[in-house]
């Protein structure tokens, strides 16, 4: 979806794992007053064409980064300010490394280059924690209890069953969501951060269970010349829990010096 003035700076909003472009609903309309807004659903999420999803292509974040670049090419976007939430922060990092000329700025909301603790690095989760998430998503023990129904009935001839049960927001195909969770939480993009040449802002929440403050500090230190702003916001979605502060931070960075 493209909204906002045609001559405004292009701001592309990318949602993370778990939801779709609805996640931006509290900030996008205001941003659209001044900026050319580009919103999209990753393949497999929201209203995207589920048939376009391929297990192999989306087994790494490169597949998603490639989609971002395709959208830019298709819409002939230049000087894009890419705003990536959660896993889309790293998707934006990968896209900006591949085609730095395409992007004028990066805004990373709650980024984490690696969720799993590693020698001297604290991502916030152990491998066992992540495995538990993936296992429970595989078995659907976690999440929508209603999601059990299509898994058990599993009737591909009657997709409307799953359709009815799914939430009106953030519709996701359970199988695709599981694969996306795997791609997201097993990714490790720490080595990519120093390759970013585009001016970058990190928006960190003060209390975020998924991307803790020290992970934000790690990203800030690893991306040359990056800026870090900490929002007084609890949770992983400041665009929902602190929309005004998020809005202000995005707008001032977009309008700030190149």
């Amino acid at each position: 979806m493209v909204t906002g003035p045609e001559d405004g700076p292009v701001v592309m909003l990318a949602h993370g794992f778990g939801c779709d472009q609805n996640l931006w609903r509290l900030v996008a309309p205001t941003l659209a007053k001044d900026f050319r807004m580009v919103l999209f659903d990753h393949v497999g999420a929201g209203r995207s064409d589920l048939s376009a999803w391929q297990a192999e292509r989306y087994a790494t974040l490169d597949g998603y980064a490639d989609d971002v670049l395709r959208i830019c090419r298709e819409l002939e976007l230049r000087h894009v300010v890419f705003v990536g939430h959660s896993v889309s922060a790293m998707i934006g990092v990968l896209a900006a490394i591949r085609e730095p000329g395409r992007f004028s700025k990066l805004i990373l909301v709650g980024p984490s280059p690696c969720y799993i603790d590693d020698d001297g690095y604290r991502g916030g989760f152990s491998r066992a924690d992540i495995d538990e998430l993936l296992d429970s998503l595989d078995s659907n023990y976690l999440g929508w209890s209603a999601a059990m129904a299509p898994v058990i009935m599993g009737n591909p001839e009657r997709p409307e069953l799953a359709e009815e049960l799914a939430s009106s927001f953030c519709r996701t195909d359970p199988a695709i969501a599981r694969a996306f969770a795997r791609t997201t939480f097993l990714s490790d993009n720490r080595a990519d951060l120093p390759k970013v040449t585009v001016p970058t802002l990190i928006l960190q929440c003060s209390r975020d269970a998924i991307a803790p403050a020290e992970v934000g500090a790690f990203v800030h230190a690893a991306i040359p010349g990056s800026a870090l702003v900490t929002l007084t916001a609890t949770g992983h979605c400041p665009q929902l829990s602190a929309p005004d502060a998020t809005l202000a931070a995005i707008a001032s960075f977009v309008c700030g010096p190149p």
Partner: protein
Amino acid sequence: MSGPGSSGGGGLGEGDQRPDAHLASLLEDSTEDLYENAPCGYLSTLPDGQIARVNATLLSWLGYTRGELVGHRYFSDLLTAGGRLYHETHFAPLLAMQGEIGGVALELLAADGSRLPVLVNSAVKTSAAGEPLLIRTTIVDATDRRAYERELLRARREADLERERLQLLVTTLQRTLLPPELPDVPGLETAAYYHAASRDEVGGDFYDLFALARDRWGLFLGDVCGKGAAAAAVTSQIRYTLRAAAVYDPDPATVLGTLNSALRRDYERNGGRFCTAAFGVLTPSTDGFDLSFASGGHPAPLLLRADGTADYQEIGGGPFLGVIDDAVFSSTTIRLGAGDTFLQYTDGLTEARTGNGRDRYGDQALQAFAAGIAPATAATAINAISALLEGLGNGLDDDVAVLALSVPPSPGDSDGRPRLVDGERP
């Protein structure tokens, strides 16, 4: 509820006060007690998740004191690591956007580290101005339910596995009933197509093309009534009977007569199964092939001529095979000249439903289609028919077998039309 004194008079009586009195006697007069000791957990948090109030039921389930949770812990602190990730990526965003969320399966961590499977419902309480004030959450013990779900999942996985095994078995069995590839017949192009209507059942259609002697080939195509393992066993019997009978006496009418006798003999054991079949013997002629041909209840074959016409071939015919004793069949000779294509098929093709109604594709449509593609080689005819069948989509609900034989056109044919010479098989 009707009081003991109600006489069904219809008007308001003195008994109408009694239900309230009755309810009051239940002693459910303390909402505080109802909250604390409800048969579900109650939890209220600030919008950021900090626990503000919790009921006694939940505290006893989790083994915490009120002081350990209220003002100190967040809702997500009570979740497993996987649950926390789910909470942050799905639960909290959806709750913020929708104002409520229900039927979410999570596991709570008790003070002793044990896990309690629960179903969670949350709703946001807002101020008059719409500002979120609190998140109210009810928690239902789902231990039993989770066990049922696990069992259903296990059963489902087992069923999927069984289905895969069945489909593998069906595919393998189907393959044994069809020739892996058609043999080389010098001076003839051959092609075949098989569509199985179901992945779960072996189809009842069959065909074959095989060498009988150095310059003689047998071919057959047919349709056993029914599907599945029992029909497949009969198909297997038909195949070896036809092949063996043709070696003994290659006259097609005699071969079909032998098959009829064999099917009659085993009629009971075969569950009363019968079939339609067409049988032919190919021998080279001066400018092509002679096809001696007989049919038992099978649709007439089509001949696509070098001149672009297509006609059904009149075959003497005979009854279904395996239905009556001493059935009589007759052989006819069809001459295949340069550029001619012989096409035999099963009725799944002409019986396919077209459009939304119950209309069938039909013999006339097939003839017109054949005339449209004539002259054609065996391969182009089969390609065209497989495309036609694909186009019929769900209307195609039966198995279909098609066998095509074509004599390559000779350059400078009688109609004078330029024609590509398809390479003869070496």
